[in-house]
């Protein structure tokens, strides 16, 4: 089996490509009739799906893994453990699953990148869903201790109230570029004209 596209992507930290690369590679070796299961980097493959927020595909991949591999490769189980927490929306449990395993040298950078990305995703979620939230919960969502979490969000403009242990969420104005291509406007005019006549 030629894993070079995968190792290249891992080396250049193109983690969002990993799931697709693995999917394609797997279909290819399967079609050639290679018994790939024993050597397949299931843990990386699972993490690749999680990295692009595709827990559905991760779940189907987990279901297709032979039980012998699930029993013998603790890292595969550990990777799915993260997926399972995401699946059940056990927001804080994801960090426990990440920290609760000694990841191999190969998987470690991917797990670390995922963890960082997940913290960002969680921050965005809190930003969109809360107006005030306790420091304790924020720490759980961001996977930090309470001081670090407070510092993290304060840097992004949130206000802390030490008395009630509450944080006030500061929404960031979303800046989007509003440059309209005149060709678009022209086309819209044509549609309206078309509809009216």
């Amino acid at each position, binding site marked *: 089996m030629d894993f070079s596209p995968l190792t290249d992507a891992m080396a250049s930290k193109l983690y969002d490509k990993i799931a697709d690369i693995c999917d394609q590679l797997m279909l290819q070796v*399967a*079609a050639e*009739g290679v018994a790939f299961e024993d050597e397949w980097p299931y843990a990386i493959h699972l993490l690749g799906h999680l990295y692009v927020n595709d827990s559905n*595909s991760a779940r189907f991949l987990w279901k*297709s893994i032979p039980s012998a591999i699930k029993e013998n490769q603790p890292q595969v189980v550990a990777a799915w453990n993260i997926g399972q927490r995401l699946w059940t929306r056990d927001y804080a449990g994801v960090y426990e699953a990440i920290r609760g395993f000694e990841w191999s040298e190969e998987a470690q950078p991917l797990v670390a990148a995922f963890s960082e990305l997940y913290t960002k995703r969680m921050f965005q979620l809190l930003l969109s*869903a*809360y107006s*005030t939230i306790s420091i304790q919960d924020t720490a759980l969502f961001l996977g930090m201790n309470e001081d670090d979490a407070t510092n993290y969000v304060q840097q992004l403009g949130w206000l802390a109230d030490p008395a009630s242990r509450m944080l006030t969420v500061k929404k960031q104005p979303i800046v989007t570029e509003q*440059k309209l291509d005149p060709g678009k406007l022209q*086309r819209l005019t044509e549609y309206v004209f078309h509809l009216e006549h």
Partner: protein
Amino acid sequence: MQSVENLVTQIQGLSSSASDISVLHNLLKAADDSLRSESARLLPLLDQLEPSKHSLGYLYFLEPCTYGSITKERASTLVPTIARFITSCVAEQIHLAPEKFITVCKRFKEQVMLLEAPIRGVGPMLTAIHKIQASTEHLTALHPEFLQLCLLAKCYKTGLSVLEDDIYEVNQPRDFFLYCYYGGMIFIGQKRFQKALELLHNVVTAPMSTINAIACEAYKKYILVSLIHHGQFSTNLPKYTSSAAQRNLKNFCQPYIELANSYNTGKVTELETYVQTNREKFESDNNLGLVKQVISSMYKRNIQRLTQTYLTLSLQDIANTVQLNSSKEAEMHVLQMIQDGEIYATINQKDGMVRFLEDPEQYKTCEMIEHIDSSIQRIMALSKKLTTMDELLSCDPLYLAKAGRERQRFDFDDFDPVPQKFNI
């Protein structure tokens, strides 16, 4: 009559130019019967042919090999051979014998199933579709086979690649039924319920003279997905649905209709009891997972209903109204729904309140305009297609003869080439 060895030489010599190939095609057609009777000898001869060069000849030799009952042993030699052939054959050559190619691919699927390794067929079957398809708008007989393999091998994501194309041309109704049914299942697996509904709806409302099992199973899933996605289900089918479906579908899906009725009461406990008593029925239909999703969707539905009445509401009140155990649980449900974009709200933990908001989309960003623009383009293309199809149909002699007969006073003196009344 030629010997098969002779034929091998012919194939080797006549596979380069288009005119040679058409000569070869005639030779092969003439030899088809003798090839079939000598099918036992053909497999070793394939080694003398190059699938990427002698595709047509290879196909004529390969097809008889796949006939008859196949043992596991034979399948394990045939599967790699066919996989290699599909991957390397030349599309132009196999287009001369599409039926043979489809037969080979179908037998190939049966063999990977026999080997209990559906994943081995996924890649080649996708390649086969791309090679045999006249355009991405054509549904081939291999589409359903491919999607079924994807489901069995749990490669749902790979299945999406063909489902993204819009299909306009269908030859066999059965292919279309299965394509939509399996496609619906793939979208369900990916939790893209809107697309799943669309496909399942196609199955249920497609023309059919008698009711069929695919439509029944599709209708069951349609009911469940409709509850999960829309929170409601109506038994009214659109007017263009066949009368066979209108009359019979409900009778075959009674437990599901009752489930929908129970859902409409809005009471979670009632729904749970109903599911519990009918568990076996859902389980034997392999729909229990979806039914469970229906139950959990009810909490969401009830919360969504609250957004229509209240501007702000305490978490405790939400928990009480939708029958959740604690205000924390209510908070988690609201959070999940915000995450999934199902409601717009902000949670105020300090006061334990939720404030429901309007959809913040203002339809003025460039992306939104881009999106609307592409939708309009698609609809315009679709409308053009419909017009062409309508024109084609109104010139179709078969249709005209039938419509003419049904029209009471049809007279050739009417200088009216198109019947005015469409009896659809």
